[in-house]
């Protein structure tokens, strides 16, 4: 059964017409054309579909889209501030943390949530905070460095 509702994504309200059983990643990707959110497993295992719901990281493949009504959804497409890349984005580029890039949007969203919650994470907190995001290409070292560097950047900001 199709339902009609609204989703607020990156500060923009989108009208949605979709079956009640559709997951959020599917609606973002197929209905709203926001394909920056990836699907690597569709089963809450890989973190590629990570988005923020009112600032909390969730695997959007395992979350019903209709339940996200009235909440603020943040995806990788909204990470940039006008023309400025987020420090996490510039750092992951500089550190060489992007190879195939399939995990990258989910990694960025998890890291973003972590730094919002814990602006000065310990090294362990970074590792645990990103342990729900699988990357098969990089071995994580460069991604870890990028997040550690970004947390320092945010630290020096007043």
């Amino acid at each position, binding site marked *: 059964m199709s339902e009609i509702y609204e989703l607020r994504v990156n500060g923009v309200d989108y009208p949605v017409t979709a079956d009640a059983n559709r997951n959020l990643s599917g609606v973002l990707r197929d209905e709203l054309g926001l394909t920056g959110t990836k699907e690597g497993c569709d*089963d809450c295992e890989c973190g590629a579909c990570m988005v923020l719901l009112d600032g909390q990281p969730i695997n959007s493949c395992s979350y019903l889209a209709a339940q996200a009504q009235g909440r603020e959804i943040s995806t990788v497409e909204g990470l940039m501030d006008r023309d400025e890349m987020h420090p996490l984005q510039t750092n992951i580029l500089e550190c060489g943390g992007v190879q*195939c890039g399939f995990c990258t949007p989910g990694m960025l969203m998890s890291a973003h949530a972590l730094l919002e919650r814990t602006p000065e994470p310990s090294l362990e907190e970074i590792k645990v905070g990103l342990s729900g995001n699988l990357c098969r290409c990089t071995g994580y*070292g460069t991604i870890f460095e990028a997040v550690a560097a970004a947390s320092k950047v945010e630290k020096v900001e007043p």
Partner: protein
Amino acid sequence: MTDTSAGSTTTINPPATGVGNSVDRPDASAKVLGSFEFSNDLNHERMLWGATIRSPHPSARIVSINVAPALAIPGVAAVVTHHDVPGSPVYGLISHDQPVFASDVVRYQGEPVAAVAADHPDTCRRAMVAVEVVYEVTEPVVDLLTAATAKPVHPDGNVVRRVPIRFGDVDAVGDIVVEGTYEMGMQDQAFMGPESGMAVPAAGDGSIDLYVATQWLHEDRDQVADCLGLARDDVRIHLAGTGGAFGAREDVSFHVHACLLAQHTNRPVKMQYRRDESFLGHVHRHPAHMTYRHHATNDGRLVKVECDIVLDGGAYASSSFAVCGNAARFAAGPYKVPNAVVNASVVRTNNPPCGAMRGFGAVQVCFGHEAQMDKLAAALDMDPLEIRLLNALETGDRLITGQILDGVAPVRECIEAAAAFPLPPISGNDVFDQPGGAGRTADPLAVRRGVGFAVGFKNAAFAEGFVDDTHARCRLENGQVTLWCAAAEVGQGFVTIVRQIAVSTLGTDRVELMRASTADIGSAGSTSASRQTYMSGAAVLKACEEVAEQVRLAIAATHDVAPELVTIEGGRARTIDGRVDVIVADAIADVRFEAELRHMHRETYPLDEETGQGDCDVTWIFAAHRAVVDVDVELGLVKVVEVTTGQDVGVALNPLHVIGQIEGGISQGVGLAVMEEIITDVGLVRNPSFTDYLLPTMVDMPDVRITLIEQPEEGGPFGAKGVGETPSLSSTPAVAAAVRAATGLELTRVPIKPQDIALG
């Protein structure tokens, strides 16, 4: 020898985006912004969705297939089976032995039986259930050791290949002999972006375009065209954004199915595998059973290596031929071995099909020969490092194939570099430092530390007389360089490297590499066997150099100087007297310079079928790893604390991205050592998900310290070698050796499971 912090030795000319620099990937910005189009992001307003109906049985006869109930479902546009394949009913990488759709029997769980196209993925799912396939289940062949003589799994017989090697005095006997039997489980490539793509039928002329994440566009094209009964030019394969590969995209997966559905419906058809389907829908790393006997003198010099290797290829051949060849050739490891007797074979079973994965064949035997080197060291009361250094291969040595190792071979340097890093301090009592990590179950008093070493090698590029060619085209026009090459970018960074090569040759960073497509240029060969930088990088370099040469002649004419007075170096054209000094790319406007060429490496030859002797390889790659682990010996939990490595890289064209390859390869090696295995039960996959097939996470990854060993390789662009597979060779055996050192257990099988330690 370069520490990772240092740059390379290559002379750099401005712009500073040439070789030797850690330049950003050209596609990285789009990837961090979320705008990069991966193969499963493809969209077309008229598209249908395709899905594959697969056998639930590893071995069965097909009694009947009834597609009518599925076709009756509203929204279903087509269902195709083996009846609908107009061309060759079979395909395959080296031999064509795998049906597009099973017709009379199924030989593995997940074998495609039919495919459906519908207006929505949900409709596809309903249609998949509605297709009625009646099977008569038969007894599967699942034991690799008895498969050779079991009932035939396939009309071609149960032995895909045997490779014997007889080198030197086969009866030689050492002062000391150590024996061991080793096993490796089935590893999955587990790339993050599942198989996906879209087939688009061209209006009117029967030709078709397929956009797909793949490793080898032209090989796909040939197989797809043959199955569709089309001329090869009527199938155009375009590379779609690829979310990793590691060998699993070298074979055709849904390619023919999507094209058939698109032809039947005359609409674009998109297919994408679910993760559980991906586990069943591509080849894996061959499980291996290896029995070794090493002979040595009392002072530790190797006298002879004897080895029997059996690899489980599953029902279809895929790249088993090459995997078996690698296992045999590299069975003795990177050591001076004067005599060898090797028998390698790859058999068919009804287990999941196996084929290419990073380090194919060489990874399996490295686990065996390195365990043996440690055994030998223990028997002789020698240091594991010392025995490896004593026997380390050098340039000019003869390999067990009789071939002279004539490339650079810094085995000693790799070992010394891996060992040179100071050992990490004993872990603290923090829960994060304990084995079990976030599980927090380790008792610090039960934790033992262990250190292990391993060294590995293999060839790079195609071997054994396979035609190994690649094509590149370079165009220079008004200061803009455009490059064409069909090498598949799968995440490894080819797109960055070729750009750097062009920058260094032509002196401008206005360089664009076009999307890889069979429509635009000849084959680049496969993105596998650590060959694209070495092969296609060299092709692009040659094409750029040829353009630079054309420009040199034109400059000489324009400035009215003799052509031989104009030299080109580092992207600049100069005369000694200084009259001419210009950036090549900017020298002549309004003229189009273009060069296209085919590049091949030196010829290689097949192995003799009885003795396994022959000059079959073109170049070799080496690495050594040292692993430090903490093991809770009571619970069997392992924490890999640190892995250090010295890796032979030729010259690092982009040091940061070389490091990325090494760290990624080590993570897969660590996974194979202590976590990753596809578990089968009478041919059925028991863990086709990331919940049950465990990959290393950021928490599981050890600290990695790297020394790049830079010794320029002749034949490689700017002295570069392939770097992709090397880190996966000896990282696994190094971790296993460290766990053995911590526990005192033999641990002859990887992955090592907690119960192997706790109950060992």
